């Protein structure tokens, strides 16, 4: 029993290391997408959910494949890989930011609910692992086989940001707004 638990702990640790290594490697890449995706102020608009379906769908691939041109197929795969990686980096940056904000809010809170905190941390770890796995899998096989995993990541990140925004304190009422009422 102890052997099995150690094995599981080892696997989880290894996966975490791979995820962080992949994340660190990609963050270090000098591309404008990476810089912007990691910037807290950039991409102020939220990524629409249908976008994930589009990037990871096979519809456009079938169109390109129908043209029977290897150079177009190669360009398509290269381009879709790039877009999918931008989305993964953006999702990863978003959840890390949400978690940072949540941790700050939790430290200042006087009545922390531990089961809720545990649930949030479990979601965070799951998302870090999924993003790490997605990054590696996109690098290796391209995004067209990963639609289901991408949908899970999208759903989890939405849940997590919703939970996190529920914890966020309401912004103070500005003097102008208060005066106008």
């Amino acid at each position, binding site marked *: 029993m102890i052997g099995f638990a150690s094995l599981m702990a080892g696997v989880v640790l290894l996966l975490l290391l791979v995820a962080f290594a992949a994340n660190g490697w990609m963050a270090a890449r000098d591309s404008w997408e990476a810089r912007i995706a990691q910037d807290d102020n950039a991409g102020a608009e939220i990524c629409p959910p249908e976008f994930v379906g589009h990037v990871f769908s096979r519809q*456009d691939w079938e169109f*390109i494949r129908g043209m029977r041109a290897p150079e177009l197929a190669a360009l398509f795969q290269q381009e879709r890989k790039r877009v999918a990686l931008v989305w993964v980096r953006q999702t990863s940056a978003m959840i890390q930011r949400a978690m940072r904000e949540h941790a700050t809010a939790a430290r200042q809170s006087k009545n922390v609910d531990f089961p809720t905190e545990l649930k949030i941390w479990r979601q965070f770890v799951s998302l870090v692992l999924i993003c790490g796995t997605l990054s590696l899998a996109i690098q290796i096989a391209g995004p067209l086989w990963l639609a289901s995993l991408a949908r899970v990541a999208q759903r989890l990140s939405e849940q997590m940001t919703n939970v996190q925004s529920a914890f966020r304190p309401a912004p103070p009422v500005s003097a102008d707004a208060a005066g106008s009422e």
Partner: protein
Amino acid sequence: MDPTDKPATVEQAHDDLVRHSLAKISGDLARLIYLASTRDYNTGKYHHDGLAAQFRPEIACQALEMAHRQIFGRIAGCPLERLVGEVEAYVNSSPQSRREVLEVWQKLEPYRVALPLNVNIAVAQLFISNIKLALAVLQHRRERKAAGPSGS
């Protein structure tokens, strides 16, 4: 009548823009390029003399921005096959030769300035990537046509 007297909303100005100026332009890509061209490069503010005269400059600016975002969203989310059709229609409507427009668009990538401000970076990247692919598809078709039936 002074436009400041009119209690107009952004939605009204937007409707007017869609029914008049945009209705005269064929194709979403051409509309997108037109709307992006009404934006000042330095300030990011949109200007449209007719709309500003009818409503107010701030209302006109917001209506143009709204239309820009809507059309951008439609194009960024449309299937690649449809986008190829949009780019083809835009290229064909240009007074320049098809070959010239395709080459300039591939080299200068002028479609990058068509992005609305603060658009999600992943969506922006998909738009740029899909336009690049659509241009490559059109270039491929042109070369195949030039090579003749034996070229395929």
